[in-house]
Structures are given as C-alpha cells and as structure tokens.
C-alpha cells in the first residue's frame, strides 16, 4: 500500500481489483470534492449516489470539501438531495464559503463575540453572491454595504472577502481597495481557482481571477481559505476529528484537490470525471520540479463509481 502523502512521490496507479480492496479496506472515511466528482452541473455522476450509500453501509464516513463559494451549506444539502444523494446533511459539507466565514469569525471576533476592543469585530466587505454573504452573516459578522464611502462614520471594515462574484465590477474593485488602504484590514479569498468548467465544455472565470485584480490594485497578498491550503481540513478535524492516516481524499483537480490531500497528509485518488486529465498527472510525474511531484495522485479511477467493488457487499 502506498504511503499516505508523507515522504516519496505518489505514482498515480489505477485503482482496481485487489488494489481497490487493499486501499479502501483500512480507510475510516473519505473526503470528496463535489463538482466534477459527485456531479457535473445538474447531473449526478452515474453510480455516485450508490457509492455514498455503500460507504454508509460499510460504516465509512463521507465528508465533502468544496472550493465552490457560491452556495451556502444549507443550499448544498438541498442540492445533494435533489441530485439523488441520500443522507448528506449540511454538517457534513465544508464549502469555502462556510470556512471563509469561520476563518473571519476567528480572526475578527476571536474566541467570543467581541473583537476585544468593544467594537464587535468590525464589518466585512464581501465580493460574492447571496450564498457567501449568508454564511458570513450566520457566523455572526456584519457586512459592509455596497456604494458606501470608504471612510464613513459607520463601524470600520476589518476584512475584504473575495469570492465567486458574477456581479464583480470596477466600482467594487475600487471600493475594496479603499478599505484595504488600512493595513489592519484583512484581505481573504475563498479559493484560488482560476476558472470552472461549464457543462458544454466552456469555462467561467473563478475567484482566483478576481483575487488577482484585488491583489494587484491593493499591493496585498490574499489569505486563501480554500484548497490546496489546509484551513478547510482544520475545520473538518475540529468538527469530526478525522485521522489523516485513515482518510482518503477524492478529487478531480490536481492543483487543488490532490495538492490539498498531499498538504494534509492524506492519500489521494484522482477521478477523471472532472477538470484534470490523466495526461496532466503523468506530465507532473515526469517533471523535474519538486513542486510538480506534489500534484501527482496516489491513485486514479475513471469515476468514483469504480470504488464500489472495493467495499463489502
């Protein structure tokens, strides 16, 4: 059995047959990315709902970790159900929207509900949709409105949060920069993804492209909550106490999911129903660069439905 993301390079082996049982047998749980793994657009990957059901019956945990900052975890819970996945509750789902809100709550409100100086932590200027804004509010933070003066009599803005914002404009970029002139104001991004696939093979720009604009204008580097950074794994461990040496990471994007697994000490499985192609993984494996080797998955499957035979009947 391959090492769990520690020393040595992963070797991108197809998981099947006896290898499948050897890898899945000892695992206590699996972390799944969502887009391109469980579903593509409005369509569940064939066999994915059955896989989750079989995991449940095998007594293995299934948790979900997604860089998608558009939806609240409540919306995601409904989406799982609508697409045919049974038994997935909001508490099992870790989105970059939720984790960014938790991160900001920690940094602005500290352990309790106060910023330590009686001001209640300050406000957050969010570049993003209603799903992201709702998670920030649910974490007990107040949002800065749009079109307000950068330095008003209102409570100071203590953080700018860049998420997926299909209503992004130059004016909002300028407003964010106004707030970031205060060196105490944090710059946080939900995820680094440069683009996301659309169901017809086209691409839509991701949070990473908007963050690049804000970083360039403000001269600041954003703190990125989402994969491949490990903060979302910290949130998972805090809530469920998973053992990385007994947990597998399953994802479709080498630069986020597989690198995330490596960074968190998890063995990784690439599924080919999403963004990354097998040739890209093989190219990273053949590369001389040390950084490229961290993007090579331990294993790959054509689809997560291929994991089903590895579980007990």
């Amino acid at each position, binding site marked *: 059995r391959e090492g769990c993301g520690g020393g040595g390079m992963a070797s991108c082996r197809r998981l099947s047959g006896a290898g499948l049982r050897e890898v899945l047998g000892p695992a206590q749980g699996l972390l799944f990315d969502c887009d391109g793994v469980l579903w593509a657009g409005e369509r569940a990957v064939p066999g994915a709902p059955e896989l989750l059901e079989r995991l449940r019956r095998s007594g293995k945990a299934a948790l979900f970790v997604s860089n998608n900052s558009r939806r609240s975890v409540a919306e995601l819970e409904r989406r799982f159900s609508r697409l045919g996945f049974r038994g997935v509750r909001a508490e099992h789902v870790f989105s970059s929207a939720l984790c960014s809100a938790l991160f900001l709550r920690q940094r602005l409100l500290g352990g309790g509900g106060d910023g330590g100086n009686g001001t209640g932590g300050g406000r957050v200027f969010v570049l993003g949709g209603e799903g992201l804004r709702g998670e920030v509010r649910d974490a007990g933070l107040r949002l800065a409105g749009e079109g307000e003066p950068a330095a008003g009599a209102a409570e100071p803005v203590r953080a700018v949060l860049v998420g997926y914002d*299909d209503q992004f404009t130059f004016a909002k970029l300028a407003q964010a920069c106004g707030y970031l002139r205060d060196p105490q104001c944090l710059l946080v991004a939900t995820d680094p993804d*440069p683009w996301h696939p*659309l169901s017809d093979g086209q691409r839509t720009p991701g949070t990473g492209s908007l963050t*690049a*604009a804000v970083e360039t204008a403000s001269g600041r580097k954003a703190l990125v909550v989402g994969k491949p950074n490990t903060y979302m794994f910290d949130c998972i461990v805090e809530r469920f106490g998973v053992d990385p040496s007994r947990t597998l990471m399953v994802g479709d994007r080498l630069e986020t999911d597989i690198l995330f697994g490596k960074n968190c000490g998890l063995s990784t499985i690439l599924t080919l129903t999403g963004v990354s192609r097998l040739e890209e993984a093989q190219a990273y494996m053949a590369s001389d660069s040390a950084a490229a080797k961290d993007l090579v998955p331990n294993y790959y499957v054509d689809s997560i439905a291929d994991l089903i035979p590895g579980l007990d009947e």
Partner: protein
Amino acid sequence: AALPGPSPADWAQAPLDPAVRAVLVGFDEHFSYAKLCQALRYLLRGGPDCLLVGTNRDHRLPLEGGTAIPGTGCLVKAVETAAQREAFIIGKPNRYMFDCVVSEFNIDPARTIMVGDRLDTDILMGNSCGLTTLLTLTGVTTLDEVKGHQESDCPARQSLVPDYYVDSIADLLPALGD
C-alpha cells in the same frame, strides 16, 4: 451586445463574433465579470490564434489628494489568471512603444533622454532601451525610493535607478539657450 439571461451559464450561450481575433485589455471603469467571461470565451475559442494584448500593467492611477483608483494592470491580471495565459503588454516598461517611436523618427538612443516620474515604467524602459534617464520628482517617486534601489544588491532593482533627477522639469530651463 445585450447578454441573454442573468447568469454566467446564460452568458456562455451568447453568440461570439466570428471575426474577433484579439482581446485588448485597457483601462475600463465599466469592467465586469460578464466582460471577463466574454474575454475568456474568445481566448479559449481562438487559442494561440486569438491575441491577448494589454495596454499597460499600471497597478494604480493616482488621483489628486493622494488617493488612487485601480489601474489597467488589475484587469489584465484578471484576464491572464482566468485564461492561464500571459498578455503581450504594449506600454512601459516594455519596449514596444519605444520601437514605435524609433520607426517613426530617427532616434539615436545615445543622444536621447527619457524623462519620467515612475521608476518601474518610465525609468526602467529608458534604461532597457539604452536611453539616458532623468527622473522628475513632481510625480509618484521619492528620492528615498531611488536610494533604496541604488543600495540594493539586486540587479533588477538597480535597473530602476535613473542616471539623473530633477525636482521638476522646469529645472531644465536654465540649460537651454534663448
């Protein structure tokens, strides 16, 4: 052109102009996610046959009173990040504009002075093109910044150091005859 529907999935269905062979990013105070989407679509459709050009990389445009608004460089970076491609940049410090001047006028770099207020655009271009460079202090740069670069060991920073400086270009007048 009006975009069909309210969401990016709708925008991705809008017809593309078949004649487009370049995406040019300049200063655009009406920049939006929708425009970024369309830029990405043209670049993906055309691949290397669709040019990606940026007018310049300035991070900020200073306004009176010490504030600033985001510069073109921010918008160029957004498109480059989404498309995972580097833009060809026309403006300083790249040398394209100097090449344009040279092709129009008979310029001898050894007898030409570049005058500017920004180290990372004006002075860097001048130095890269073999011009004598003159920094004026009426703009964004302070003498302390120059000293910092001058004292640095880094060759990249050394190339930001001008040959000369003046407090203002008016200081050049006494050197010119009646």
